[in-house]
């Protein structure tokens, strides 16, 4: 049976990228994303920028000791979108300067370049951001998000609760996947098959999995809420932290230097 695995699932390892504070990593990824969208696809310099950012992703991957396979796996999910982006941009209706014609449709040079640029941007966006989740454990990530969003507490945004919700959601992804697999096996033992018939028959075959799965999820959510309340959780107010992680000087320096370089790439090119 196919294992249900997410894109960018945490790969534990001991590397400088793993050790970097989660909030710092979020900062760097934010800078990376901004830089990516500052680049101009109509200029050659835009492609130079993409190459530099790609080099940054490759370098970070190498330092992080995350298997390349894990990074590339995320691309499978967006491969169709990338292909569509290229095709939709490259094909024009009777353009003036065509590279190749297919009846009234034709591939246009400028369109092809735009399509490739956008596809490359999607590719870098997925690989760059997945590097964040590949090198940061869900708990660290939720802690990092809480600290990044901390200023919003001033305008009464329940940042702590949001972070707790996120932590729990992330924590239950593998549990839910396991549960789904178990229910599928049990229904198979009752003669259900999930790989026969057309798409509609297949979708219908999943009802015996989804109904009990959701039922169990709601039940578990209820039990978890009761258990948390029984241990006196009443929102984030006044809670202390078991592991008080702070940005070390090295985190600050890494974040500021990397972010500056990334933004500069987007700005200048």
């Amino acid at each position: 049976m196919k294992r249900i695995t997410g894109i960018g699932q945490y790969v534990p390892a001991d590397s400088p990228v793993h050790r970097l504070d989660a909030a710092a990593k979020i900062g760097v990824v934010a800078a990376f994303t901004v830089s990516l969208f500052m680049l101009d696809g109509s200029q050659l310099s835009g492609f130079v920028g993409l190459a530099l950012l790609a080099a940054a992703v490759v370098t970070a991957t190498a330092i992080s000791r995350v298997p390349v396979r894990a990074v590339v796996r995320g691309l499978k999910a967006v491969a169709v979108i990338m292909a569509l982006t290229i095709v939709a941009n490259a094909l024009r209706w009777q353009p003036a300067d065509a590279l190749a014609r297919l009846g009234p449709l034709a591939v246009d040079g400028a369109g092809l370049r735009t399509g490739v640029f956008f596809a490359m941007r999607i590719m870098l966006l997925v690989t760059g951001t997945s590097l964040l989740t590949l090198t940061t454990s869900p708990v660290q990530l939720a802690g990092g998000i809480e600290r990044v969003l901390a200023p919003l507490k001033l305008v009464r945004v329940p940042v702590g609760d949001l972070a707790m919700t996120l932590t729990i959601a992330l924590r239950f992804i593998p549990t839910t996947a396991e549960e789904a697999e178990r229910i599928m096996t049990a229904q198979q033992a009752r003669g259900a098959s999930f790989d026969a018939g057309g798409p509609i028959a297949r979708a219908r075959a999943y009802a015996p999995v989804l109904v009990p799965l959701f039922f169990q999820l709601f039940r578990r959510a209820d039990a978890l809420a009761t258990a948390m309340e029984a241990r006196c959780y009443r929102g984030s107010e006044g809670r202390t932290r078991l592991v008080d992680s702070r940005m070390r000087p090295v985190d600050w320096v890494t974040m500021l230097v990397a972010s500056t370089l990334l933004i500069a790439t987007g700005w200048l090119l």
Partner: protein
Amino acid sequence: MALTLTQVACEYAAGTSLASVALSDVSLTLEVGQLVVVLGSTGAGKTTLLRAAAGLLALSRGTVDVDGRPASGARARRGAVGLVFQRPEAQFFSLTVEEDCAFGPRNLGRRPADALDDARGALAAVGLDPDVFGPREPWSLSGGEARRAALAGVLAMRPRYLLLDEPTAGLDAAGRDAVCAAVERARADAGVLVVTHDADVFLGGADRVLVLRDGRTAFSGDVPALLDALPALAEAGDVDPPEIPRALMLARRRGFAPGGALTLDVEAAADTLVAARRAAAGGAR
């Protein structure tokens, strides 16, 4: 007619750093009408054995034959082997109990009306009146009722071999007795393999017992042989001894009734103790 496992070995995540051997060289024969009980501590490979017998696992070695024919894959065993997982009541999805029980027979291609008949028959076989429980919502059942209804969902497929994973876990005494009675009735047309920690409940009627330890066979034999081996198996932590033999074992350890054989029967145990007492009194006189 038998379900036969021959020197079955199973390895999870083979070839990776997470590889773990769950089962090695385990053999077992389950004949129609028999009750075979599998005991062993948590992680001994009991559930893996069930999954292997049901054809849900790729074996690293060995074979599983159903009625003399090698059957690989769950599909080949459809209908012949029924498997009930731990807490099967979690798999309900239909709006009524009888519809849920008819799911299996319908998957086997039986006509809706026949499937419903099978379902109602199976409900009766587990001691749930089909007229009362059939139209109810599965989620409205009590723990013991839900467990029996889920068991009926598999019995409705009329399997020749019934594999049960901890059928009494988490039930109260009444629920345990009801499940036990249902298993006893299912034995009329099927061979039943029960994986359990409740040795007390199932040993009485068992034809054979298999005790697993770290994926290997620690014991295989009938109940009298198991009772002979019980002190050693209990010492190793493989089996939680049933109450009566445990009482006799404690009496022995305290130097009383060392000659008497262990038994599951209350009367026989009382006789053993009385005889030992008389012998002691006679010796003193």
